[in-house]
């Protein structure tokens, strides 16, 4: 079963009272809740794989969402290898994933 590209994503199921901000995931603007994490933005945008493993280059995606697994690493505002599940979004934040920067 071979896949050309990946379209795995999350959707907003519960609307929230808090405000919205716009972040950029791989250059594309996306509206997120101001109290979402960068990992949530990645999942909403379907920007998977967000990283390729160091050893074999295999595709990876956020796994634990609690800071333990280090699978959610992404470049945030120019700083590489950030744990996206621990970073709160901010208006204008730029998130870059492996999907958006093919090697």
């Amino acid at each position, binding site marked *: 079963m071979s*896949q050309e590209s990946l379209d*795995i994503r*999350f959707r*907003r199921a519960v609307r929230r009272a808090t405000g919205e901000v716009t972040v950029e995931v791989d250059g594309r603007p996306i509206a997120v809740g101001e*109290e979402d994490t960068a990992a949530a933005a990645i999942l909403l945008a379907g920007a998977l794989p967000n990283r390729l493993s160091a050893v074999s280059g295999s595709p990876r995606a956020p*796994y634990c969402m*609690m800071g*333990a697994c280090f699978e959610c690493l992404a470049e945030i505002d120019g700083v590489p290898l950030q744990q996206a599940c621990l970073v709160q979004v901010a208006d204008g934040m730029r998130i870059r994933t492996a999907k958006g920067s093919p090697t």
Partner: protein
Amino acid sequence: MSGETIDLAVVGAGPAGMAAAATAADLGLDVRLLDEQPWPGGQIHRGVDRLAGPKTTDDPDRAAGRALLHALRQSKADYRPRTCVWHVGPGDDGVFELGLRCDGAVALLRARHVLLATGSVERAMPIPGWTLPGVMTAGAAQSMLKASGLCPEGPIVMAGSGPLLYLCADQLAAVGADIRALLDTTPRGRYFRALRDLPAALRAPAVLRRGLGLLRAPARRGIPVHRHVEAVEAVGDLGVTGVRWRRGGRWDQTDCDHLLLHQGVQPHINLPRLAGCAMEWDDVQHCWKPETDDWGRSTVPGCWVAGDGAGIAGGEAASDFGRLAALGVAADLGALTREEAGRRATSHNRALAPLLAVRPFLDNLYRPDRAFMLPADGTLACRCEEMTAGDIRKAVADGCHAIEAVKQYTRCGMGACQGRMCGSTVPEVIADARGVPVSAVGTYSQRTPVKPLPLTELAKLDTVLNPPSTETAA
């Protein structure tokens, strides 16, 4: 470095940490509550401060979380979010030193007492394909729902064992998730064996009723539940496209975009281990936990452990364990007489009794199954260094018997996650290969920093940290 020394540093703002910090601050102690997440609540009370959760079978947690948060905000405890603790250990003068990192800046904090309330992590479920995008833990999906109101889009399969799997299925279904199958891997015979612990569990009818309600919830929501599943595999290339499973010797499969795994939780012991706390093996929960007394005192003077990090008892129990530890610290510091601490402890112990009475039943029912702890040779055991179970078996065959030797040989446990993902699987595979009980293999030792830290940042610290204890249980 500033010479500031506080009374108590609490690590982890889940139920144990929030309750402990508020209690200790109310007793007049100078308390700082450190947490890695941007918001308080830990995993169980994620998003408690902002999002109205979906209506599900299971709402009592939210009210409890709000009450804890309210007490914390009313107290004088100094709560510091986004703060990673990468070092903890006693300094030369017996005062604890904590290495912190917040928003890219490192700092050192000195505290007379430290309470580690770092909760639990989900036990790994190393099946073929478990690193594919689209596969995540059930707890992770639950976090996204609780904190951000997000739900996986498209067909979902859930697989594993334990109450959280059912709770998460129920919560996701409540917001319209398309759950195609729930594969319950609890082995046949477990229910029967757990029955002998049922009389004790009946002391906590409310807890039992809640559990039974959860077990029935997926079927009530029309989710097909397959029990006694023997094997699960994620299928896909760039990401998961389907799941295969074996039941009664027969393979079956379904397409999906998401696979959510869960195989119970275990104490998150990296910090207690680094601090030098003696560990003990819990045979029923099948995990290591720090040795503690009734107050949460560890074997290292001044270092306390409370909540699931001291042994799995659940979020409700964690807050009372946190309060007990706060009373213990206050008594040690003279902010409270021993008699008064003992008197106040009574009500917490009374609240804990039914929650603890139900544990043997739950723990025996959901004891992790060997089939899911001993992956086949070709399956990854370590996600960071990409080592398979076969690589570990080869290391043992080549003469690496101790866990530290296997670690050096394979680099398992030396990657970014510092063993948080492979820490349950690797000892299991070693024990199996050597034909010894897993308790004889021990657990990874921990070194500073317990979370990767850019060396340039570490260099900014002008204090040399004492090297932590590195002996192993093996």
